[in-house]
């Protein structure tokens, strides 16, 4: 089973996790810029964090045979703090970089006016930099937040095929599907989805435009729940090819739209039929000391 985890916060995880993930088949990840638990109070702490996402964390992952990518944005929660407004001005420096495969996580937390301004502006940046957008949906009033999210996506003019609306559940998947956006599901203990519920959604809707992630971070979470979902799919009668589509080919297809993927040329990298998805993307042939 080869796995591309399209949403995982590796800066919060240990090298043990990297080892276990590789052993479970994880060969590529996307790490969205997000809230660190402790609120930041200045632009400088954001840029240091972004630098870590395109620098140290990418190197750390490479040591374990995992291709690391990231998304860059001002997250919704901190968009409410005026001291962080300047982050929006430094984003263009990062959005042109290799391995930065989307603008994200953007979206709503408590759905205030400052969040909405930052959300709109960053959707515009996604259009300007020809990048996909990764949109977080709120923990509170998820249904209302998802509805408003889809309105803003439509008003921005971004192609819905370039948008993944994340942390969906049984109640919010329908409208996102109807809008033609990609559907992200986080398999995360207690607060989000679990493997069995994920399998039922796949049985009802099929694998098209579905991304499954662990969203593992500094909270109680598990980076191997993507693998557990693959196992649950197989136990429910899905084929190896179905699992490969959901856990590898779908995220590759979505993020390849950025033209900035950094996937290694390895034996278990993309099947020939998926090769066209890599057009325009950088192929990294190992990161040896030169």
């Amino acid at each position: 089973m080869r796995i591309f985890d399209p949403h995982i916060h590796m800066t919060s995880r240990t090298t043990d996790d990297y080892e276990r993930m590789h052993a479970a088949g994880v060969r590529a990840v996307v790490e969205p810029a997000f809230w660190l638990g402790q609120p930041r109070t200045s632009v400088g702490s954001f840029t240091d964090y972004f630098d870590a996402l395109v620098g140290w964390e990418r190197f750390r992952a490479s040591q374990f045979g995992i291709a690391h990518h990231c998304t860059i944005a001002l997250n919704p929660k901190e968009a409410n703090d005026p001291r962080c407004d300047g982050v929006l001005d430094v984003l263009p420096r990062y959005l042109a970089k290799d391995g930065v495969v989307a603008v994200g996580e953007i979206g709503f937390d408590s759905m205030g006016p400052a969040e909405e301004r930052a959300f709109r502006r960053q959707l515009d940046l996604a259009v300007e930099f020809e990048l996909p957008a990764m949109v977080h949906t709120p923990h509170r009033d998820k249904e209302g937040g998802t509805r408003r999210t889809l309105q803003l996506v439509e008003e921005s003019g971004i192609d819905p095929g370039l948008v993944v609306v994340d942390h969906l559940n049984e109640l919010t998947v329908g409208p996102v599907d109807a809008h033609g956006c990609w559907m992200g599901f986080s398999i995360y203990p207690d607060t989000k989805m679990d493997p069995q519920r994920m399998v039922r959604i796949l049985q009802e809707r099929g694998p098209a435009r579905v991304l499954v992630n662990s969203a593992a971070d500094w909270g109680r979470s598990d980076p191997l729940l993507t693998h557990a979902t693959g196992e649950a799919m197989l136990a429910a009668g899905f084929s190896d090819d179905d699992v490969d589509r959901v856990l590898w080919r779908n995220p590759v297809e979505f993020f390849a739209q950025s033209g900035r993927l950094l996937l290694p040329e390895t034996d278990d990298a993309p099947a020939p039929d998926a090769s066209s998805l890599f057009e325009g993307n950088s192929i990294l042939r190992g990161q040896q000391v030169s």
Partner: protein
Amino acid sequence: MTSVRPLAPPEELRSALSDDARRALDDMVAVLAAGATTLGRVFPAAARRTARGDLAAGGPRLEDAVRVELVAIAATRLAPGALLDELDQLYRYGDADEKRAVLLALGGIDDPAVDGSAVLLDALRTNDPRLVAAAMGPHARRLSPHDWRHGVLKCLFVGVPLAGVSDLAVRADAELTEMVRRYIDEREAAGRPVPDDALLVHDLTTLTRPEA
């Protein structure tokens, strides 16, 4: 005008690129030479627009050679101070690949008015062997003896081959030998293997400098 030695002759670099990549490089060079854009705009996407991988076995990487050529072109329009500012900014906001290219470009700059030692010291504080290796090139001659010795020791720690350290035979001194000897002692006391390169430094100074 500050001259920047290329990592590869321009014609050799171009012959290793595909037609599209060659056109992209020529296009970036033309707009930079005309002053129509800044280095900061073209630098991040330069690898994506051209190529990655080794130019030749053991040679420089294509993307590094491309980026260093772009620095050389920008340098023709910039005073030394402005060039250093530009390199500082590229490094400050660069990902690890961009940072490495800045360090390699500095390695090709002998102009005394361009002192990038602050950038080298930043790279030597990281634990990324690609950056540490690039920091110990020819530009490292501007580092103080203390900083340079610690750079060599850092190479041993993170596994950067000392063959890539400029001026090693000339600058290795008794103090470095002592530092490396203590490092070897510590490895041996812990029952850990001693890198061949550590022994090389030891031999360099004890064999070629009998007075040390």
